[in-house]
């Protein structure tokens, strides 16, 4: 049975697509065009009542929130992606939360300010961009320290914690913010490693960046 992934083929939807490719799970994308407001239609809201993307349908089962989706499939098909022990799992969860609450917010806001808003004719808020830059720099300083201690965020194996960062980190180059990664030796090496995984190369080829 093919997993249906509803969403545009970038950002959080790509997080799910990447996990499915990494796990070798068959899927199909049902495009939801955010610029046309397709995520706010009554039909879509039946699937995802908060009106955000992505959402998956797996037979009769519907699940939303990209990080809940990737955890479900990882646990089902390749649980080492979530750590091999209860303690490792705790650390993977910790870094998934850091990604969600510390890393993504400034990156997401930069994407909105520098990539989305121009498409909508909304002027860029330069003060917000400056704040986001500073926040992200401080967060990446912590990552730099962490990644000087281990190859990946949790020990020496790639986990969902690393995977979860890939789609949004990919945006940084297109916004002229790649220096935030390159200025940090270990973050830079980590990014080179995780962004050249066959799964990401495949996803990136199938769904090139929209901006």
């Amino acid at each position, binding site marked *: 049975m093919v997993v249906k992934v509803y969403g545009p083929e970038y950002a959080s939807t790509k997080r799910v697509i990447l996990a499915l490719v990494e796990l070798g799970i068959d899927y199909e994308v049902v495009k939801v065009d955010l610029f046309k407001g397709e995520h706010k239609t009554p039909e879509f809201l039946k699937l995802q*009542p*908060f009106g*955000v993307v992505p959402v998956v349908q797996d037979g009769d*089962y519907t*699940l*939303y*929130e*990209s*990080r*809940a989706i990737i*955890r*479900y499939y990882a*646990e*089902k098909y390749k649980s080492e992606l979530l750590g091999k022990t*209860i*303690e490792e*799992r*705790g*650390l993977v*969860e*910790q870094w*998934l*939360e*850091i990604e*969600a*609450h*510390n890393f993504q917010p400034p990156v997401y806001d930069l994407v909105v300010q520098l990539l989305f808003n121009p498409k909508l004719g909304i002027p860029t808020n330069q003060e917000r961009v400056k704040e986001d830059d500073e926040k992200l720099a401080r*967060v990446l300083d*912590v990552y730099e*320290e*962490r990644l000087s201690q281990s190859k990946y965020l949790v020990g020496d194996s790639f986990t969902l914690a690393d995977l979860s960062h890939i789609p949004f980190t990919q945006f940084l180059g297109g916004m002229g913010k790649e220096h935030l990664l390159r200025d940090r030796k270990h973050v830079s090496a980590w990014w080179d490693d995780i962004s050249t995984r066959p799964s990401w190369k495949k996803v990136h080829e199938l769904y090139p960046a929209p901006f």
Partner: protein
Amino acid sequence: MAAPAPVKVYGPPLSTAVARVLATLLEKNVQFQLLPVNMAKGEHKKPEYLKIQPFGQVPAFEDESINLFESRAISKYVCDKYANQGNKGLFGTNPLEKASIDQWLEAEGQNFNPPSSVLVFQLAFAPRMKIKQDENMIKLNEAKLAKVLDVYERRLGESRYLAGDEFTLADLSHLPNSQYLVNGTNVAELFTSRKNVERWWDEISSRESWKEVVEMQRSPSPRNA
């Protein structure tokens, strides 16, 4: 005298994220020590604390095998590690249940938490800290939270709790922010004007574990449980 519990939580119980972890530990009947972090004095930004939480946030958690931070990660770890004690269904008893709880935990973190956290700060903390309230922020986030609670109202008309008919970590995760908003701010009405949300709030906030957390928030000094 009993040996001190190996489980340690660092941070003030008034912090919503700390309260989230305390509620989980109490639901799971896990003994713990609560260690103070004086945020008014900037203790959470000092080198000694940054060693255990490099982002300078509370809580931090420690047991005999791990140091962890991020309240939702800590709560999940506690559910895994102490699976066979306390509330055994808190994080589900099979993969589909767990995924559903996870979905609502994410919904809490991504949709409920942002506007409610702003309101908690503006309405509950700013006055105490003598910081001027930002009326625009309050209005904007009230509107956002109202939309989120409309979704919850529909959901809670379909099931007793968010992820099904049992209380889970997904419901628990909402307790800390909601406690501030429903008790003593003028946005309580966002909850009490929605029939199902109000029913759900009454049920989850009357759990013994939550009442104990609220007691800890009211008492002037940290104590061991």
